[in-house]
């Protein structure tokens, strides 16, 4: 299968928030005209990029050599004869504190490696959650919810709850998903985020006779008299969609970028961050990572695509797309996650070799260079422990968790986004990650 395995909000179809009347209630014709507080320009921001399908973390951060007590490279060579990457091709993670780990990046990640050498890339190893699920839908939901699977569908996500805690100002598009449907990660009890799949969004009814009278009528569908009705929900989505389109009417269009990859969505994210919409958190996905077969070429192309997207996000393309506004760059963190990693051993042989669903994998965080005006900075380098891989005689099946996903989330919420309250009541149980951020 070559297509995306992106899953919709509930693959089981059970209604999210079935008891809650959906909230687009703050949105109406007046919303689009509201002034966004200029202070939002100084907010620290987060972009979450989910590698959709289950990224093979072991071929993203790769053992180069064995280290004492951990014959990682020997095991790697033994169980990945086809998809294993030769050591001389790997981009060494050789900053002084990291060199002893003998790890390297996938060869396609050249720009990413450059950021690593500048100290702007943090790699958290072995990230997962307890009671790991190997199902795309269940595990994606766990990562977006920020909670291990409970047997019941989740109705909210960790960034949605963050938006609830910090509050969203009138007229702000504070949380946005550059995805075709509103993602769980941005759903809170009150706040829901917005989905802006691409720019421009147009009401190309615009030049037709009667258009503005029709908009005015259509937004009235939000007042449908059935209180608990999908018809009212539809009416309110109509009103908010028209509001969002009007709010973003002057936003520059998503630039054309050669190739099909995630760069256009990441650039749309950039447009939202650079605009005056109060955008603080952005979520997007790069599909295609479910490499059950044919992994070598497919994964390489995905890595190249990811690297190019990060490059264009920061530096532009030297033509129509300029570099990211430094004011935004200095305040933006990009976190790259995936719903799970993949098995240590490959499946199949030769060109068709691939991997089945796995467990723990690294999380990448891209940060800015230090700036005098910004109170915090990301500290680059390797964090956490590489999960054990067993021995050549007895290779491990899967990489197990050495860092709880919730520790990463809590660290980002508290230390980067300055969320005033903890997301997790028991957050000390899985700790904050020491050293992920530093006061500038």
């Amino acid at each position, binding site marked *: *299968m070559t297509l995306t395995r992106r899953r919709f909000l509930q693959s089981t179809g059970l209604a999210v928030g079935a008891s809650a009347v959906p909230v687009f209630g703050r949105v109406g014709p007046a919303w689009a005209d509201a002034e966004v507080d200029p202070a939002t320009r100084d907010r620290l921001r987060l972009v979450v990029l989910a590698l959709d399908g289950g990224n093979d973390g072991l071929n993203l951060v790769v053992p180069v050599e064995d280290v004492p007590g951990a014959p990682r490279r020997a095991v790697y060579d033994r169980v990945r004869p086809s998809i294993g990457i030769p050591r001389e091709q790997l981009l060494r993670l050789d900053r002084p504190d990291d060199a002893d780990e003998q790890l390297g990046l996938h060869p396609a990640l050249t720009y990413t490696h450059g950021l690593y050498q500048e100290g702007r890339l943090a790699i958290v190893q072995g990230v997962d959650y307890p009671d790991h699920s190997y199902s795309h839908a269940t595990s994606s939901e766990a990562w977006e919810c920020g909670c291990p699977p409970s047997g019941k569908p989740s109705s909210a996500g960790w960034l949605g709850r963050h938006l609830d805690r910090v509050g969203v100002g009138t007229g702000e598009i504070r949380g946005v998903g550059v995805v075709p449907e509103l993602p769980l990660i941005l759903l809170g009890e009150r706040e829901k985020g917005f989905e802006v799949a691409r720019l421009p969004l147009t009401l190309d009814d615009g030049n037709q006779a009667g258009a503005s009278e029709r908009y005015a009528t*259509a937004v009235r569908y939000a007042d449908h008299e059935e209180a608990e009705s999908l018809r009212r929900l539809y009416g309110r989505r109509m009103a908010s969609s028209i509001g969002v389109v009007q709010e973003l009417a002057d936003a520059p269009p998503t630039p054309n970028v050669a190739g099909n990859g995630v760069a256009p969505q990441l650039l749309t994210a950039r447009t939202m961050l650079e605009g005056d919409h109060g955008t603080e958190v952005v979520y997007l996905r790069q599909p295609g990572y479910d490499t059950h077969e044919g992994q070598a070429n497919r994964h390489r192309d995905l890595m190249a695509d990811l690297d190019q997207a990060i490059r264009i996000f920061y530096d532009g393309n030297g033509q129509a797309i300029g570099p990211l506004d430094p004011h935004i760059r200095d305040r933006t963190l990009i976190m790259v996650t995936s719903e799970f990693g993949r098995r240590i051993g490959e499946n*199949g042989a030769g060109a068709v070799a691939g991997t089945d669903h796995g467990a723990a994998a690294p999380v990448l965080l891209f940060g800015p260079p230090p700036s005098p005006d910004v109170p915090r900075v990301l500290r680059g380098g390797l964090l956490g422990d590489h999960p054990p891989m067993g021995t050549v005689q007895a290779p491990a099946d899967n990489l197990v968790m050495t860092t709880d996903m919730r520790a990463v989330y809590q660290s980002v919420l508290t230390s980067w986004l300055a969320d005033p309250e903890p997301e997790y009541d028991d957050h000390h149980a899985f700790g904050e990650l020491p050293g992920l951020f530093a006061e500038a």
Partner: protein
Amino acid sequence: MAMTPEQEVARLLNRVAFGATPADLDTWAERPYEDLVEHLLDVPSDVTQRQLNPAEFRQAVDESTTLFTSAAAAHWMQVMRTTAYPLEERVVFFWHDHFATSGAGGAPRYADVVAQINTIRRHAFGSFRELVAAITVDPAMLMWLDGDVSTKDKPNENYARELFELFTLGTVPQRYTEEDVREAARVLTGWEVTTSLTLKRAARFNPAKHDTGTKQVLGRTITAAGDREYRELIDVALDQEVAPLFVAYKLVKAFAYTPDTVDLVAAPDPLVDEVAASLRATDWDLREAYRTLLLSPYFRRPDATRGQQLVRPPVDLVVHAAKLFDLDFDDFITSADRYLADMGQIPLAPPSVFGWPDSEHWLTTTGTIARYLLGWAVITSLGRVTNRFALAGHGDLPPSGNLAAWTRRLGLPGLSRNTELAVRDHLLALAGEYEPSIQESVLLLLLASPEWEVV
């Protein structure tokens, strides 16, 4: 609040038959609801004449006029519009979503997925057991979920997992383990897809690549049985307590409403329970399951709350619009193409094996705007046909102020007070304008109204 017979007819056809036309209302409003249900279910078992023929559609639809919709998909929508058996076409489309296999990626190709649709049609009014069996060794499915590269040395878990997770058991509650998935993958090893010189595909069992050991799946033992072994796996899956509830749940969610439940076994929705009981009692007969669904008092309840409603899928809306205005898809698809893409549903190209969204999850920003604008596809297509001001050529359109007549003209059960008030105020705002222009505005607003979008 009870519904009139005409309202029930409109709602039923809008739910399960790509929409009601005024002619449908004329024919069925005076007859018992049960008669209409039996009429819809009266689908001949011999499907030969109704199979999609790939050779036909390339002639019918000029694919160069569309960016997103394939010729095969446009041809299928033409069939949806014109078939004498709309319930059949609608349930075949439902099973297409359930087994969500896409031809957009090239492997399988669209022609392979069309062949899968024909396989679905053979069983859509027969046995679910036979349907799942046929899909398991369908060439398009084998290519889609890597069944064709799964061997005893390297069993591929993709189909095994989705067989449980998406096709037969679901995850709420999850009654299968990772070990069951691995063992099921062993059962499914050894299948291949062959391609003839004319690009016709076939599934072939290769005993040399099949794992002949004993497997333990869902508490049962499966011993070597060659090319019949997958049948035993399906039997074991369908024997699970949750299986009929899960299949019933999918049907209810597609045609009635999204049940408000968290555990299908512990607390099933009453309509889900009824349909599951039917599947159990008839050894998975699908025609009986549809009959149980459509005749159930829970299905027929008046729909004032979200608990009994669903947001109509894009294809239903586009086909309904085509029926209402006699629009041939070889032309209409040119206008509707981008709206289908923005609304998020092109037949034969589901976004992933998880299929298309449900109900309110269709209502993304882009999707909602496309629904708002869909009426333009109709007006543009009519304009091309009449070559002048589009609606002026349509003699049977009601005067702009007669909303009751407009409601019936669009096959709707009714308008809410709020919608009616909003549209009437709009008419006041446009008073004095050219009447066909006002009619156009009314059409656009009603084809964007909550009553059109939510059934």
